[in-house]
């Protein structure tokens, strides 16, 4: 049988009504092992204005590089209470902030390990289908250099996927258009 998937539609301006209940400020609760990181930034439109009716979602492995999903075949420990999902709506200025743990490396195509990364989806009014991107980590230059996904990104644009250290926070902006436009993936 071959059906085609239903069409995506925008979340619209009132997304909070249906989606806010699952807001996750801290993806890694108490007792979850790993290096704590706080990531904050803004979602910016083509005029550089903050998008106040947007939302990002995060999917990630734990510090061992294991996903809480039955299709992850790796024999690695998974803590009870670890889901690895976060949902963060933007505020009135388009800002978002969440904390988590830095994930471990997970297998990639051809047995090459991927660099530690978070998978990110971006939703907002004015977007008919969500965008997908990734967050990598600046303190992993070796792993980043051999990452099979990052390698496909034109070198001058790779920096858009790597947050910059700003005090105790990692600053990462989602820039929809123009100079420093964030790299988005289509799978």
């Amino acid at each position, binding site marked *: 049988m071959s059906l085609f998937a239903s069409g995506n539609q925008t979340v619209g301006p009132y997304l909070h009504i*249906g989606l806010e209940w699952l807001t996750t400020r801290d993806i890694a609760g108490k007792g979850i092992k790993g290096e704590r990181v706080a990531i904050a930034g803004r979602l910016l439109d083509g005029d550089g204005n903050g998008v106040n009716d947007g939302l990002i979602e995060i999917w990630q492995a734990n510090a061992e590089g294991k996903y809480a999903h039955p299709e992850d075949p790796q024999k690695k420990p998974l803590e009870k209470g670890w889901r690895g999902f976060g949902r963060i709506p933007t505020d009135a200025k388009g800002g978002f902030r969440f904390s988590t743990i830095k994930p471990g490396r997970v297998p990639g195509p051809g047995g090459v390990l*991927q660099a530690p990364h978070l998978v990110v989806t971006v939703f907002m009014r004015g977007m008919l289908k969500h965008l997908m991107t990734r967050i990598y980590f600046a303190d992993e230059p070796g792993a980043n250099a051999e990452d099979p996904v990052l390698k496909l990104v034109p070198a001058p644009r790779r920096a858009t996927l790597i947050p910059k250290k700003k005090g105790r926070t990692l600053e990462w902006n989602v820039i929809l258009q123009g100079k420093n436009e964030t790299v988005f993936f289509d*799978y």
Partner: protein
Amino acid sequence: MKKIVGYRRPHPGTQPAYNYPPYRSTQKRCPTQPLVLPPQTLSEITGPIFGHGDVKPTDHDLTRQHKGDPIGERIVVTGRVLDENGRSVPNTLIEVWQANSSGRYPHRTDQHNAPIDPNFSGAGRTVTDAEGRYRFITIRPGEYPWRNHFNAWRPAHIHFSLFGQAFLTRMVTQMYFPGDPLLPYDPMFTCIENEAARNRLVSVFDWESTIPEQALGYRFDIVLRGREETPMEKMP
């Protein structure tokens, strides 16, 4: 590690483009650089798992969330969540949100001068059963104006958010009502080029799920992305 069995690419014309000028807000919010097409990896073919423990048994009934009954026509919305291979997607979270019967959302940014219904919040959630079926009880949402173009009105709709079994099956869509005269004027609806794909977003009246003397039934089946290859052991 065994080879990743990926998810199918969309059939041309069945998904909206990021840049769709008739929906004005896409202009400043669509990427202008080409998207990068990486291989699907373990990171994308996995995704968050939600279960029946994540929702309350009453979350699917939007008419029972306050002291009184909401104003409007009660309806039952049922359907199945399938994948492109026609298989059920069981135990998957569905979130819905919608306007009240007068076309108003209880949201700080909704300025439409239609009344708020103190007995209707307009949000619900449920998890599909073992056969991928779901059921919501709600009231029929009203149409409402928006500022996209002169005299623009959104057809009646319910927003649906689904996860499926992978982050690649994540989808947010909208359900419309059969015979709505506003559909051909609505850029959200017309953004999907393929007519059959567009019509998949329109629910059908369903006599069998209609509750006598209580509520009309509408059926809305949702198809999520399916696997590229079929693992043999799962063949029926």
